[in-house]
C-alpha cells in the first residue's frame, strides 16, 4: 500500500485510533509496540488501514450487468451442471458478497437452477469476522428497499439488522492477500471476480502482481469487475475489455 501526501489525514487518523486502542501515550511508545508485534499489533495495524466503509448494492450497475450479461455468457461457455463461482475480493465486512447473493435472489430467474458458490475474501481478519456475523447499521442498508430488508434481514435492535442465516450460509469467507500467489491460488478459478477499489491503494508493482494473480483465479472467459474509477488496461495487458450496456468489465480471453 502506498499513501501519498493527500492521504496524510487518513494515515494519521488510523495511527491515532490504534494508539488510543492500545493506550500508548506517545507515538514512540506505540511504534515500539508495533515493531515488537505486541499482542499481534501488526495485524491490528493492517486491519485499521484496510477497514473500508461500504454499503449494500454499491455500484448497482455491475450487479445488473452480472445478471443481464455475465452469467449467461458464462453458462454458455461451461459444461452443464458445473457450479457458478463468484469471488468478492476484498469483501471488507461482507456487504458486497451478500449484495451479490441478494441481487441474484431478487433479479435472476435461474437462481434455483444452478449451483452457485459465492466466496468473500479479505486481508483483514477483523473485517472477515464481522462479515460472518452479518450485522449492519442503517447506513449500510440505505440503498435497499424496505421489502428487501424485510426478506433478508432480521432486526437486532433499533439501529442494526442481521443477515438471515440462510444467506450467511450462502457465502463462504476466507482471508487472502491478493498480492501473494500462494494465498490466491488455493481459492481456485472463478467465473466472475469483483475486485473493486483496492488496486488503487497499491504501488505499480503490487498492482501488477495482484492483477496477474487474479488473472490466474479466473476461468478462461471469466470476468473481473473493478471500481468505476479503475482501469485494468493501465495495469495489465492480460485482460480484454468487455463492454456491456450496464458496465465495462474485463475478461480473461477464452483461450
Amino acid at each position, binding site marked *: 500500500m502506498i499513501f501519498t501526501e493527500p492521504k496524510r489525514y487518513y494515515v494519521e487518523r488510523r495511527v491515532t485510533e490504534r494508539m488510543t486502542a492500545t493506550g500508548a501515550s506517545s507515538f514512540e511508545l506505540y511504534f515500539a509496540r508495533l515493531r515488537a508485534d505486541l499482542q499481534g499489533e501488526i495485524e491490528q495495524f493492517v486491519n485499521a488501514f484496510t477497514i473500508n466503509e461500504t454499503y449494500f448494492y454499491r455500484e448497482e450497475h455491475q450487479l445488473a450487468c452480472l445478471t443481464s450479461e455475465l452469467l449467461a455468457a458464462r453458462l454458455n461457455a461451461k459444461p452443464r451442471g458445473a457450479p457458478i463461482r463468484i469471488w468478492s475480493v476484498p469483501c471488507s465486512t461482507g456487504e458486497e458478497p451478500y449484495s451479490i447473493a441478494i441481487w441474484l*435472489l431478487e433479479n435472476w*430467474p435461474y*437462481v*434455483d*437452477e444452478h449451483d*452457485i458458490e459465492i466466496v468473500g475474501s479479505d486481508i483483514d481478519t477483523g473485517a472477515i469476522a464481522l462479515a460472518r456475523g452479518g450485522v449492519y447499521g442503517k447506513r449500510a442498508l440505505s440503498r435497499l428497499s424496505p421489502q428487501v430488508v424485510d426478506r433478508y434481514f432480521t432486526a437486532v435492535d433499533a439501529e442494526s439488522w442481521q443477515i438471515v442465516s*440462510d444467506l450467511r*450460509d*450462502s457465502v463462504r469467507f476466507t482471508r487472502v492477500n491478493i498480492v501473494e500467489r500462494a494465498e490466491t491460488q488455493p481459492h481456485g478459478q472463478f467465473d466472475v471476480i469483483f475486485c473493486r477499489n483496492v488496486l488503487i491503494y497499491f504501488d505499480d508493482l503490487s498492482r501488477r502482481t495482484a492483477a496477474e494473480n487474479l488473472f490466474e483465479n479466473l476461468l478462461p472467459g471469466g470476468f473481473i469487475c473493478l471500481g468505476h474509477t479503475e482501469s485494468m488496461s493501465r495495469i495489465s495487458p492480460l485482460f480484454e475489455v468487455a463492454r456491456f450496456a450496464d458496465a465495462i468489465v474485463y475478461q480473461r480471453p477464452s483461450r
Partner: protein
Amino acid sequence: MTNDAPKRVLVVDDASLVRLYYRTALESAGFEVVEALNGLEALEHLLGGHFDLVIVDVNMPQMDGISFLQTLRAKSLPVSSIPAMVISSEAAPKRVAAASAAGANFYSVKPLRAEAIVQYASLLCGARHG
C-alpha cells in the same frame, strides 16, 4: 389464502440460497416454511410435527430426494400420505418416472419462478398421497 391457519411447507434442499428463494416466495404468499438440508433431516421434521406439503430437491447429499420419498411412503399413516413435490434440474422422462414410482405427487423442473412455486404449493396443499 383463506383465513385458516397458515399451511406448513417443508422445503428440502442442500443449497441454502435455494431454500431461501423458495422460502421467501412461499412466506410472502402466507405459507409457513420449515427447512431441511437433506432427506434425513426432513424425515425428522415430518415425524415431529404436522406439515401440509413437502417440497424436495432430487440431488442432495446424505439422503437424496428419491430415497427420501421411498422412506417416507413406507412409514405408517398419516405422515406417509403428505403430498410431495419433487424439484429437479433434470427433465428426462425416466427421472420423472423414478420420482413418480417413489411417491411424488408432482414433478417440476428448475428454474421455478416465485409465482409458480406458490401456485403449485397452493394446489398441492389440499392433496393427499395414497
